[in-house]
């Protein structure tokens, strides 16, 4: 028997669309607001300070070691809300599905989304489904938007000043290296897993324990390098990090070595950078290291006034260089 596939009629807005929504999306995402099936979700919020964000997910391959496009779409938006010190509450979710997409794959993706939602307790309260003719999208694109209530006010990329401490929550580069290794033109057989994860539980614990967080950002595209450079520019400071303190998995080092990349430029999907005042780093690390996903958290460097808008990487043998924003298409070295 041939496998069930998504058809154009399931995106047409009629009976087939309705049954796809009920049989699949409601089954996994169900909650009171969603099941009302109104044109828009009506929500009441306690706080008057709301964090609101959106992101689209187009990752290829759709399934990778440690996650899939659905898990990424939930964790990504939840993390963006969390990075503002806000508790993620409600999400919307739009699917753009290529005609012929395997139903069982879609179900696997939706199921993993519902599991990832449980980590933060956020709900999907509105959604949309489009099916487009073959070739119009690459399998499946997902957009998620979300809102959260700000619990810890004032976290910002503008806050960095002299003597502040910089912490990274996990090994860097795992997601980027994992995706690169799975690309069909490389096909490296490695055991590396993407770091894809929801970071709200760690942020909540940091807030509850009264850790003073000045800046917080998840190091997605452009990796550690991009976050540090954005912060240095926004706050007009120098950030100095010690290369030997930045955790990098052996497999990531191996891929970088072979293809000529830097782990600091690779994307992460469950790794954040924190800026805390001097003296606060031990407390922050103690909280982070309680969690499996952030147990490799490390204090990597500090903020100085040495130059304006610079990131400096110090080697363990006493030389230094600037860590700059990644540029252009990622291409391998050839010799």
């Amino acid at each position: 028997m041939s496998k069930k596939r998504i058809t154009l009629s399931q995106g047409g807005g009629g009976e087939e669309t309705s049954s796809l929504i009920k049989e699949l999306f409601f089954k996994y995402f169900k909650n009171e607001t969603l099941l009302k099936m109104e044109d828009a979700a009506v929500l009441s919020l306690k706080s008057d300070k709301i964090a609101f964000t959106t992101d689209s997910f187009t990752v290829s391959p759709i399934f990778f070691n440690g996650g899939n496009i659905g898990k990424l779409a939930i964790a990504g938006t939840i993390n963006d809300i969390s990075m503002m010190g806000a508790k993620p509450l409600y999400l919307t979710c739009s699917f753009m599905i290529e005609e012929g997409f395997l139903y069982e794959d879609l179900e696997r993706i939706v199921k993993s989304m519902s599991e990832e939602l449980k980590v933060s307790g956020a709900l999907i309260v509105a959604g949309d489904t489009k099916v487009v003719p073959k070739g119009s999208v690459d399998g499946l694109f997902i957009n998620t938007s979300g809102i959260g209530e700000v619990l810890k006010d004032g976290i910002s990329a503008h806050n960095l000043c002299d003597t502040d401490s910089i912490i990274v929550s996990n090994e860097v580069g795992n997601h980027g290296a994992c995706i690169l290794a799975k690309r069909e033109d490389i096909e490296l057989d490695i055991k590396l897993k993407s770091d894809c994860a929801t970071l709200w539980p760690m942020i909540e614990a940091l807030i509850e324990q009264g850790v003073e967080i000045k800046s917080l950002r998840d190091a997605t595209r452009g990796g550690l390098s991009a976050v540090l450079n954005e912060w240095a520019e926004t706050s007009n400071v120098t950030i100095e990090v010690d290369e030997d303190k930045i955790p990098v998995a052996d497999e990531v080092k191996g891929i970088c070595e072979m293809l000529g990349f830097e782990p600091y430029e690779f994307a992460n999907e469950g790794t954040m950078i924190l800026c805390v005042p001097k003296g606060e780093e031990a407390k922050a690390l103690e909280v982070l290291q309680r969690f499996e996903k952030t147990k490799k958290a490390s204090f990597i460097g500090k903020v100085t006034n040495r130059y304006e808008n610079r990131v400096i990487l110090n080697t363990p043998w006493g030389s230094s260089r600037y860590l700059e924003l990644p540029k252009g298409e990622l291409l391998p070295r050839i010799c």
Partner: protein
Amino acid sequence: MPLDLIESFRNPKHIKALAQEIKKECKSKINIMEVCGGHTHTIMKYGLPQILPDLIEFIHGPGCPVCVMPKERIDHAIALASMDDTILATLGDMIRVPGSKTSLQKLRAEGRDVRSLYSPLDVIKIAKENPDKKVIFFAIGFETTTPMSAVLLEQTIKLGIKNLYFHINHVLVPEPVEAIVSGGDSKIDAFLGPSHVSVITGYGIFEPIVKKYKTPIVVAGFEPVDVMEAVLMTVRQFNENRVEVENQYKRAVSKEGNIKAQNLINRYMCKRDHFRWRGLGDIANSALKLRSEYAEFDAEIVFDEILPKEQIDDHKLCICGDILKGNAKPFDCKVFGKACTPNSPMGSCMVSSEGACAAYYKYGKFIGKGMR
């Protein structure tokens, strides 16, 4: 890749100890040219000039195959990729390098089929999957990548593939090294010999140059410990009045090299009379081409009619030629970092990440020693 092959050659204790030893033993100024772009990359990325004495100065050589490709050869790639029903495949950042009018990357954005490969053998798959198209492999690289092109041709013949053509731009190391050292105006005292090239050729290939020009060559690996150790070996040659080829990269390089790979290259390729190097000009016998018996696979012969013949020089403000000979540093150039950047390179040293100017642009802006 076992990681101790990386980590133990980046061991901070070893690097510091070597720096101390070099400081202690180095008594006179030594200008060392690292021939290979991979070494330039290592020297700049790991900030080695900052921990070495002022007496050691690195001069960045021509060993970046993308950098030394003259614009007219890139125009060949562009003319070939612009033909109908054609797929052009190449390696590394060749795709980004501008020719006289456009780049392969821009051509791809306009809808032409240009592929950037990780392994040359992938071309076989592309040719088989597209029997109604002409597939052209734009082959670049020094002796390191040449055996792969030879294997590719061997496989093409063996499998009876008729739609795959080769545009060979393989270049050699000893000839440009000799051209630089014999030029008269170079101030090079010693060379760091290339790592991966020597794996294929063997370090013995450099012996005639060392004897003829009385200039030491130390073949070195690519890790910071390798480069530091090779510098120490160079310093000791001067202190002990020796002029030799020495092999620091013993874990991979022998005197004879990879004979099987050398035979494979010789079966399918032979030397060109001349090749024009970007930045260095015409150098006799410094590049390879397909042997005449394989003319039916040679894109330069099959598509000769459409290939542009005009030589194209770099802008007159570009001083890459002087940088490659060791007579100037990237920072001496008026257009460095201004009109000439990795995104819009004007000269050879900026076009690939392994070129001296690109390495200075990426790593060398830190205000410190060796960044003059």
